[in-house]
């Protein structure tokens, strides 16, 4: 049975507000252990399952040349053996208890995800505590895992134009900040880091004071608290990791790069503009601007490029980010359209917003889309855990999740025009083109 609660009423100009049931702030209980580990709990008994998400404040932004990709490689090593549960036993024990797991690494975070029948909660605590407190990196496992990650890198480049473009584009958009390299790292670094690099990495970043844990599902808060005290509380805190202090110098003119790939059927163009971090006040306006440009078939880029047969696909992407990052726009040309024509079309549509702004109705539309996306994300215990943790990390507190509707609501058409003018400028732009042949100078 799901408890009925009131929450999240979004008042939009002409729309009648409705009363809905969805998670609200009071449904999330949290506590912090003496070692600094913050734990949040959402009770939800809709299915007999639960999950545990562990967010670690480490990603490729914490790397330096020579060990690029080590955050992600380390994520793999977290599954490869500790004191109580040796190589392979983390996965075998979890699966035998009905659980499954995964993990992902981004520029900013490394996130471990466990999905399990609620009955297995204690087993999961035991497994996680073992690898957090007593990881035992096996030299042989390091070598086979290098092959796995090399394959992950290769298969991404083989199958994803997005990944191919983004890797090159980050390299020219950032010349100082660690966002310059891809999360998977440089090929030569994957083969070069040492066991000692990995041991240091665990010691530095996998300290309880550098983590946020979210548990959602068919569990009871008191039970979670008792298990957290038993398994996680004894793990000692560590000194805070080195802060990332590098500030990317201001870009003062357009930068360009080209990638040749024979099998690409039509040119792909990716633009990237420098934008501030997620905690900056302009985040909500930029996020809505991204939707105006590309969300739904009535969006600006779809209407001007796909509908007019200039592109077969367009998308925008604004990652959540700790440091100032990039606003991406990507298009795939229709046959017969050159990279130059496609790029011109994309830029002209972006410039039109900077010049003329957006309508009230358009803004209202994307606010509705945001609300819908929010509901979708809160439909599963997974979505709840991931969303709550993400807000805690990028906005400084999960409470911000419940201010989000209001924060989006406050954004005006003038705000969208202002952020388009401020950030989506030529001098602030990097361009990458992926095509079978490079266009000639003639």
């Amino acid at each position: 049975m799901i408890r009925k609660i009131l929450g999240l009423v979004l008042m939009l100009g002409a729309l009648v507000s409705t009363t809905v049931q969805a998670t609200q702030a009071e449904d999330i209980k949290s506590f912090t252990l003496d070692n600094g580990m913050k734990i949040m709990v959402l009770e939800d008994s809709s299915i007999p399952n639960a999950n545990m998400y562990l967010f670690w404040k480490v990603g490729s932004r914490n790397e330096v040349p020579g060990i690029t990709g080590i955050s992600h490689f380390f994520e793999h090593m977290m599954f490869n053996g500790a004191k109580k549960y040796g190589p392979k036993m983390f996965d075998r024990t979890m699966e035998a208890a009905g659980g499954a797991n995964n993990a992902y690494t981004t520029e900013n975070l490394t996130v471990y995800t466990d999905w399990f029948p609620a009955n297995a909660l204690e087993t999961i605590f035991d497994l996680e505590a073992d690898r957090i407190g007593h990881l035992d990196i096996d030299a042989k496992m390091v070598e086979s895992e290098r092959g796995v990650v090399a394959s992950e890198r290769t298969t991404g480049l083989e199958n994803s134009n997005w990944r191919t473009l983004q890797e090159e584009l980050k390299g020219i958009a950032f010349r100082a900040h660690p966002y310059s390299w891809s999360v998977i790292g440089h090929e030569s670094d994957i083969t070069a880091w040492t066991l000692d690099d990995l041991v240091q990495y665990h010691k530095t970043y996998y300290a309880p004071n550098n983590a946020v844990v979210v548990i959602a599902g068919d569990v009871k808060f008191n039970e979670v608290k008792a298990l957290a005290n038993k398994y996680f509380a004894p793990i000692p805190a560590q000194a805070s990791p080195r802060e990332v202090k590098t500030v990317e110098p201001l870009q003062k003119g357009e930068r360009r790069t080209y990638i040749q790939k024979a099998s690409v059927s039509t040119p792909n163009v990716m633009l990237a503009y420098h934008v501030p971090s997620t905690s900056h006040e302009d985040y909500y306006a930029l996020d809505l601007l991204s939707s105006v440009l590309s969300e739904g078939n009535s969006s600006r880029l779809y209407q001007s490029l796909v509908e007019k047969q200039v592109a077969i696909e367009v998308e925008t992407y604004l990652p959540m980010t700790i440091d100032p990052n990039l606003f991406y726009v990507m298009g795939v040309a229709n046959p017969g359209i050159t990279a130059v024509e496609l790029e011109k079309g994309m830029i002209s549509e972006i410039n039109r917003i900077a010049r003329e702004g957006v309508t009230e109705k358009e803004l209202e539309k994307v606010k509705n889309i945001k609300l819908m996306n929010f509901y979708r994300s809160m439909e599963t215990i997974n979505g709840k855990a991931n969303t709550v943790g993400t807000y805690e990390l990028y906005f400084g507190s999960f409470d911000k999740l419940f201010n989000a509707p209001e924060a989006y609501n406050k954004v005006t058409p003038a705000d969208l025009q202002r952020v388009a003018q401020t950030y989506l400028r030529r001098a602030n732009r990097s361009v990458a083109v992926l095509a079978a042949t490079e266009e000639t100078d003639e």
Partner: protein
Amino acid sequence: MNTLTHLTKRSNKLITAITLGSVLALSACASTQTSTSVDTGSFSMPAYEYLVLDNGLTIYLMPQREVPLVTVSAVVRAGSVNDTTSGVAAMTAQSLLLGAAGKSKAEIEQMVDFLGASIYADAGKEGSYIGADFMAKDSDTMLPLIKSLLLSPNFDANEFDKLRQREIAGLSQAKESPRSVISRYFDKLVFGAHPYGNATSGTSESLAELNISQLRAFHKSYYQPRNTAISVVGDFDAEQMKAELSQLFGQWQNGEKVVALNLKAHQPELSSANVLLVDKSDAIETTFLIGGKGISRDNPDYVGLKVVNTILGGRFTSWLNDELRVNAGLTYGARSGFVAYSQGGVFRISTFTKTSTTKETIDLALKTYARLWETGIDQLTLDSAKAYVKGQFPPKFETSGQLAGLLSDMYLYGFDDGFINDFQAKVDGLTLAETQRLVSTYFPQQNLQFVIIGNAEKIALIAAEYGEVTSLDIKAVGFGG
């Protein structure tokens, strides 16, 4: 988008319709092991109502109140198996969104986007789908819209030409990613000229031939109430919804009787090992599938096979992933699975590796697969797989979208809620002796079929070691392109 920027521990699934699990045979000495069952909590089908209107339209209603959303999904019993021209089912379905009942495509998109809602339409091998996802308060707008898209699409010629052109371009684009097209090649290799071999997407040549009158004819033949089910899941009052759907769809008329295809007949015998070598000359890795025929969706051993396949290639600690990824470091992921249709299916092992380790990886995949017959499954591994399959089952039916998909599948493939309600008992009841029977009955052992996509210049000689080779360029027309 996140998947493009987040790196994960596990490999992304090769896209499959339905994947099941893998097995081992039991060696005699293992029978002394005692079986233990893990309690993963009880899970049953959420309450729902099922009704059939006088015109034969099937309706499923399942209230779910967690968020104020509603999902509507209509499924028509027709897909690429019914294609006269390759791609007609998919293009008919997608053309439903090009305008209806006097409203243009642009007007509909404006209206839907403004509500934050979304609509989709597409066809698979045996079903054509149209659906929507919207806020509960917008039901009065969205339900009539779905009705007009489903019953009275405009089939606007100009919009169709544009869609077709984009789809043809999309076929070439898809081939830039071997992972996204390899299943089409495999189905063609296994089923040949049988309707299950039809690529749902059509080919660049077949799409170029299509015209509006073919779409209209397809729509008229199959889009009938007695050939359709509508599932509504989400935040609504069942009585009100029943009244509304009856009012909207009650007058929908049937046309000429739909003749069901006999898809059991004329499925080719796989009497030799065949290799389809697809050349992508700038490939930096080799992507391959190995397998053969599988099972139909209504097979009574469906659940047992899910457990057995879990052991072979259905989870992280499966034999295939353990050998090829964890022990050898040859790949980011290896898996296996059954893809089930109504009257047949395929079984495939799938993985990829850098070009230089192609042979080593194929050989290790085959050697690992052979363990099913050579070593068999032990009780501990079986118990673990059973716990895993049960424990991972409920999250597959958590959202309105997932539940609507389940109801659509029940209609299309003719199974009932026993699939959900008896699932745990079926899994618990699987014995070691049973797994042996499942292995010998269902897993293809002889005459394996291979699709290998990669740099042919470097791997052609290797490909020839596994069977009769047919070579083609990835850009060649056919096989869904």
